[in-house]
C-alpha cells in the first residue's frame, strides 16, 4: 500500500534572514536517504513558500484566484513524500521518524486504490488511460 506524507504548518513560521538551514537540510537529507535505503520511497517534493503560490476559491462562479501569501489560510503545505509499505503500521513508523519540529504536522493519507471505487464508472475507466499518458502510478497496485 502507498501513503502520502504531507508536511503542514497551521501558522507560517518566520525564519530570521541569517537562519542556518544546514542542520535542517542535513536532517531531512538523512531521513530521505533512510527511506531510500529501506526501499520504500516512491516520490517526494518540497514546496516553495506560499508567496509564489495562489489559491483558487470556488465559493463563487467563476472561482476567485488570490495570490499568496494569504492571511486567512489555515494550513500551509510545505512538502510531501509518497512511500510504499506492507502495512499501515510501517507507514506510521516511518512518519514518526520524520525530523520535524514542534508546530509542524505530518498528515498521512493512504493513496487510493482502484478497488476503492466503482469500476464500471466511465471516468474511472478513462482514468486508467490518463494515467497511461501521464506515466503516473496506477492505484490498483496499492
Amino acid at each position: 500500500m502507498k501513503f502520502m506524507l504531507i508536511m503542514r504548518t497551521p501558522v507560517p513560521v518566520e525564519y530570521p534572514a541569517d537562519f542556518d538551514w544546514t542542520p535542517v537540510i542535513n536532517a531531512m537529507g538523512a531521513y530521505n536517504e533512510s527511506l531510500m535505503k529501506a526501499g520504500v520511497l516512491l516520490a517526494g517534493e518540497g514546496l516553495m513558500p506560499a508567496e509564489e503560490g495562489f489559491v483558487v476559491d470556488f465559493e463563487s462562479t467563476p472561482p476567485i484566484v488570490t495570490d499568496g501569501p494569504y492571511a486567512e489560510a489555515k494550513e500551509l503545505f510545505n512538502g510531501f513524500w509518497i512511500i510504499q509499505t506492507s502495512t499501515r503500521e510501517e507507514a506510521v513508523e516511518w512518519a514518526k521518524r520524520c525530523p520535524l519540529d514542534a508546530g509542524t504536522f505530518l498528515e498521512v493519507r493512504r493513496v487510493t486504490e482502484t478497488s476503492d471505487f466503482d469500476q464500471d464508472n466511465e471516468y474511472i475507466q478513462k482514468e486508467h488511460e490518463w494515467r497511461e499518458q501521464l506515466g503516473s502510478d496506477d492505484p490498483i497496485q496499492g
Partner: protein
Amino acid sequence: MTGPDEAGAAVDAAASARRQVEAVWRIESARIVATMTRMVGDFGLAEDFAQEALVDALAQWPRDGVPPNPGAWLTTVAKRRAIDRRRRLERLDDRHATIARSLAEQQRLDATDDDLPWDPDVVDDDVLRLVFTACHPILPRESQIALTLRVVAGLTTEEIARAFALPVSTVQQRIVRAKKTIAAAELPFEVPSRDDFGSRLGSVLTVVYLVFNEGYAASSGSSWLRTDLAAEAIRLARVVCALVPDEPDTHALLALLELQASRFAARVDHDGEPILLADQDRSRWDHGQVRRGRAALARADAIGRGRGAYALQAAIAECHAIAPSTDETDWAQIVALYEALASVAPSPFVDVNRAVAVAMASGAAAGLAVVDEIAAAGALRGHPLVPSVRGELLLRLGRRDEARAELIAAAALTHNEREKAVLLQKADRA
C-alpha cells in the same frame, strides 16, 4: 469484572501493538542483525540475540508502549543478551581460548554505545555483509531465500511459510540448518573480495529474482500474499541498489522487476484466469511503475559496462511497456534483444521467445523457420512449448490440419489442466 467489550478491546490493543512491533522489526531487523553480527562475530548467535530482543519487544511494548527509539531499544536488548551469554560462558568455562575470545567480544561490545546514533556508513557496510552472508553459495538456494527474507527483509518465519505455502516447521528448519552451516564453515562476516564479487552479487540477485518469481508466478497460495511477496522482492532490489549503487546488474534487476510488476493488474481477468500480453488492457498497466523501471534501466546503462541478462530482459519488458498495442510494438528491436540475451544466457526458452518475436517482426513463416531449428536441435523435446508455438504459427499461416495436430500434441504434453483446456479449445477451432 471484565466485560466482553473490554476483553475485545484488550485483544484489539494487543493485536495493534503486535503489528507495531512487526512494523519496527521490518524496518530495523537487517541493521540489528548486521550490527550484532559484527559485535559477536557469529551470524547465528547474532540472529538469536536479535530474535530474543524481538520476543522481549512483543512482551513489553504492548504493555509499556513503543519506546521513542525502537531500533536502539532492540539493539540494546540484543546486546545485553550477548553480554549475559559471555558472562555465563566465563563462569562455566575457564579455558584460556574462551576467555580470550570473550575479551575480544567484550571490547567490541563496549566499543558501541547504545545512545549514539548509528554511523550510517558502518551500518550500511554491515547490512551489505549480512546480505552476502544470507546468500552465501555454501547454502542451498531455498535456505538463502528463507534467510534473506527473515534477516534482511524482516519477515517472520510464519510470514515466509505462508508466502511459500510451506509448513512453518520446514522454514524454521531451513533457517536453523543454514545458521549451523554458516557457523560450521566459520564464514568471515565480510563483503567478498574483488575476484568473487561478481559471482557473489549474482547469487544475491538470483535470490531476489526467485522471491519475485514466487510472487509473480502465483503457483500456489492466495494471490494477495503473492503480490505482497513480489512487492517485498522489489523492496529488496531497491535496498541492494542503494547498497551497491555502482553495479549495473543491481539496477537492471530492479528495472526488470518493476517493469514486470507493472503488468500485475492486467495479467488476470475477474475469475483469475491469465490474460495473454496481446490481450491485456494496457491502460491498466501501472505507468508509475513503468517509469520507475525505465529509470532504473537508464541507471544501469549509464554505468556503461554493457547489458547483462537482467538488463536485456528489462529492455524487452520496456519495449512492451512503452508500446500502445501489440501491432505498434518494436518487434525488430525485441528480436535483436533476444539475440543478445541468447548470447549472454543461452536457453532454448529464450530461442522460442525470439521465434515468436521474429514471427511478429517478419511474419509467421520466418518465425516458424526459427521454431523448426529449435525443434531440430531437440533441446525442448517433451515440452509443450515448441508444439504450442508451432501450432499457433501454422494457424496464422492457414495450415489448419498441421496446426490442429501440433496443438493436440502440445495439450498431451502439458500437466497444467487450464493450459491443456486452452490448447484443446484452440485445436477444436482450428
